[in-house]
């Protein structure tokens, strides 16, 4: 537990972790604005409890818990978003700042991954968490986390082959 965190500390931490937190929060919502709300709630709760920022697994668990609470508290909107997602309009707001065409293809391939694989990839690639930490956050075994990661990368590799 760190108890002497200053105003500047959170800004530094959030500037570093914010984009990846937002990316993670997008697993539960199609809207960037909603994802920002989730991240805001989660980060405020995490920070006020003065948890060590090194404990990123706990931070991500807080984001996940907040997102699920929001879904439960707004079932109607969740159903509406689920219906929209089924219509194929998933993640209409860009999640990545892409540069060239290859990166755009890769970003699109990531967004087409099944949710359960996508969240493992997001936690592993853009948050540098270990499979043990990912397993804790998602309530799965480390082996399952590793399997989902491998399946995701296989799918991405396959998706990118025609463009290579």
């Amino acid at each position, binding site marked *: 537990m760190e108890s002497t965190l200053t105003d500047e500390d959170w*800004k530094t931490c*959030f500037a570093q972790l914010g984009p990846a937190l937002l990316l993670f929060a997008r697993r539960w919502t199609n809207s960037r604005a909603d994802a*920002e709300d989730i991240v*805001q709630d989660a980060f405020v709760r995490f920070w*006020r409890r003065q948890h060590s920022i090194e404990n990123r697994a706990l931070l991500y668990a807080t984001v996940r818990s907040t997102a699920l609470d929001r879904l439960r508290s707004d079932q109607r909107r969740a159903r509406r978003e689920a219906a929209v997602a089924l219509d194929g309009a998933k993640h209409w707001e860009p999640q990545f700042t892409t540069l060239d065409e290859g990166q755009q293809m890769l970003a699109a391939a990531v967004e087409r991954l099944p949710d359960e694989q996508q969240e493992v990839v997001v936690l592993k690639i853009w948050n540098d968490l270990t499979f043990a930490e990912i397993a804790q956050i998602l309530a799965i075994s480390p082996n399952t986390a590793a399997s989902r990661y491998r399946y995701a990368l296989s799918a991405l590799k396959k998706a990118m082959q025609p463009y290579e």
Partner: protein
Amino acid sequence: MNDFSELETELRELQPAPVSDELFARLECALAQSDPTPTAGFLPRTAQRRNIWWSLGLGLTAASALVFIGLTFFAEPPRTQPAVVQKTPAPFGPGTSGFLPSALTQVVYRQRDEGLVFSPNQSERLLRRVRYQTRETMQWRNPQTGASLRVSYPAEQVVLTPVSFQ
């Protein structure tokens, strides 16, 4: 995993969309405010859980009442003296009613892992919250008359399991 090293590098080169200045401003505002209810919306809602147990208790009480009424209804009717039942108290159960327990089932039709929460009592302690929705059915049967009595009711249980990060 080596097969994917190139792909992993390419993925890491993808930059997640940056955080908006507006979110920074909102965070600054939220963190600057004092927090009257630091745990609202995040900790398990104890009042709600208490309601669940109340509901379960009421359900069981109602089920017991139904069973009692059923046993009374299916028991041999006192034909001559209404007070006979009171005068010949037999052990509650198959002795008087002829009903024997025949089935007891509990079907878990939904299990939802709600993730990690903080303990309501020890705020630093982490718990995993799992919600089970079940339907419990009890059945009695009178082998002599063939009559049966079944009570079924929905129930919800919340299980909190301590976890620790390594």
